[in-house]
């Protein structure tokens, strides 16, 4: 196999491996912590800073290897050259063709532009009315209240 391609595959494998290991580490910390809690220790922490640091540290070599491999790829100019080529997938082209046909069979360009302009003006007017109504009915302050207070569940803390 081409050496450049090999490097790309190695990089992919390292990325996938690191993600799998980190996900597995998180699940392992959670399951063991939960089991400990269930043994009559409801106050015990499932995650701790030490456990997190240990898990990150354990798989740090793989991450470092991925970073080194990444840097090597960048310096050697190794990348998937196909990614910048325009797509010529026949199935996709079929979908696009059908959508273009739908377009040509619909209302003409001028009428569409006129309708779009009218819609934009209407939406703008509604938006301005909404903002003013929001300032008056207190929903602006609602937004501030929620933005300056952290809902722990909402960001995944629990």
């Amino acid at each position, binding site marked *: 196999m081409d050496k450049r391609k090999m490097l790309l595959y190695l990089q992919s494998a390292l990325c996938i491996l690191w993600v799998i290991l980190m996900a597995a580490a998180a699940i392992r910390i959670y399951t063991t912590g939960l089991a400990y809690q269930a043994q009559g220790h409801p106050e015990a922490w499932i995650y701790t800073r030490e456990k997190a640091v240990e898990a990150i540290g354990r798989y740090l070599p793989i991450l470092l290897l991925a970073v080194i491999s990444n840097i090597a790829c960048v310096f050697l100019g190794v990348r998937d050259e196909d990614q910048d080529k325009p797509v010529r997938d026949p199935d996709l082209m079929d979908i696009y063709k059908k959508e273009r046909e739908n377009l040509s069979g619909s209302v003409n360009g001028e009428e569409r532009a006129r309708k779009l302009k009218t819609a934009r003006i209407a*939406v703008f007017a509604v938006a301005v009315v909404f*903002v003013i109504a929001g300032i008056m009915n207190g929903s602006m302050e609602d937004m501030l209240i929620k933005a300056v207070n952290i809902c722990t569940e909402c*960001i995944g803390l629990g």
Partner: protein
Amino acid sequence: MDNQITEKKSWQENCRPGKRRLIQLYSAVLYNAYVKGFIKGEIYTGKTKLMCVPGFNCYSCPAAVGACPLGSLQNALASSGNRAGFYVFGIIMLWGLMLGRTICGWICPLGLIQELLHKIPTPKIRKNKITHALTYLKYFFLVVFAVAVPLWFGLKHGKAVPGFCKYICPAGTLEGAMGLLSNPANASFFKMLGIFFTRKFVIMLIIGLACVFCYRSFCRFICPLGAIHECINCAKCMDVCKQDAISLKAGKITLIAPAGGCADDKPDSAAKRARGKRIAWAVALAVLAFALLWYNVLDKSAAEINAPATETEEAEVTYSYSVGDVLPDFTIECFDGQDFHLQDNRGKVTFINLWATYCGPCVAELPHFNELAGEHPDDIAILAVHNSMSKDDIPAYLSDKGWDNLHFTLDTKDKLVWNIVGGGSTMPQTIVLDRNGKVIYNQVGSVTPELLEKLYEQAASGE
């Protein structure tokens, strides 16, 4: 076209940021100008959070200085029972009208992160029939998680549950959760981590990995904001776009995914406008420099809200909110018209809970407190203090809940209780005092009935 695009470039050329990348970076820094937040481990609480930023940026990120449009939208929907969230709807419509999908391609911080991940050299999945079909998934996420879940819980159960933030959003996990957890000052936040964090962490890893292989996977397949914002119909990206971005339906050209690198690939007409560009960049950089200076040095609003409790030493007793110290005395009027005087409850086990009607986990745990107080009516006093920032009619909200064993109050404007117990921007928070008023527990995060029972036993036995 093929030859032009596939021409080999040196690594320097490949790495040199283009105009679009610089603007993405600029927006990301501008939206997150409160750098001090990362150092202090707290979020910005100033007035600029009255404005939604155009683009995906978690407002619980320690550095964020604006509100996330999607988070705000969900919270507005969740509060529909109290008042319609006109303001958020209006702002999102205005951004969409003025900038459309330009937001996604040029000024969305999460888009920048995805593009940087995609820079990792691996074999790439190009757009195809399957990825094209998957682009319609984001409408599902919009309708179900960003609209239906908040509306359902808000209207039916009176609980704020921003479904997309809670179950999926990788920006919340990366910027909010990880941003806060990475600061040693927030070591106690680890106590809260459980199934929510595990699930969202794994989802974040999967989405991140997908972005490495498949260009802007989150934008294309998941992002509800991308489903809301409309394209400006320039259609110039059609030939060069690496995404499944083009759909020609209903008589008009519609971009069904963010417009990514197309503009960078257009023939450059920069020479004609070089002077104007230089001036624009100078102004933009001046604005950024001012923002960084303002948020990190000049603006004092954050410090005012999070003022710490004062510690005073008297004989051998230390008064503070720390575990092992005695909580300073206070008196506050409850909704039932009675005064709650902390000193009067010495001899009982006292729980103080900091909550808000718009905080889902806070509302979810209040029945546990009520049950505990019902089981030990003569031995427990529980004060539930609502955050002073509220536009809701809290007594009306509580009227049909049946939490009669608890003392409910609204904190004073100057945050009397909040400051005494060391409350911050994060809710819920529970403080437990033993019979002598000594703090035995002061933690942010939800509590379970088992933990409450254990804390009661611990406080009652004086261990």
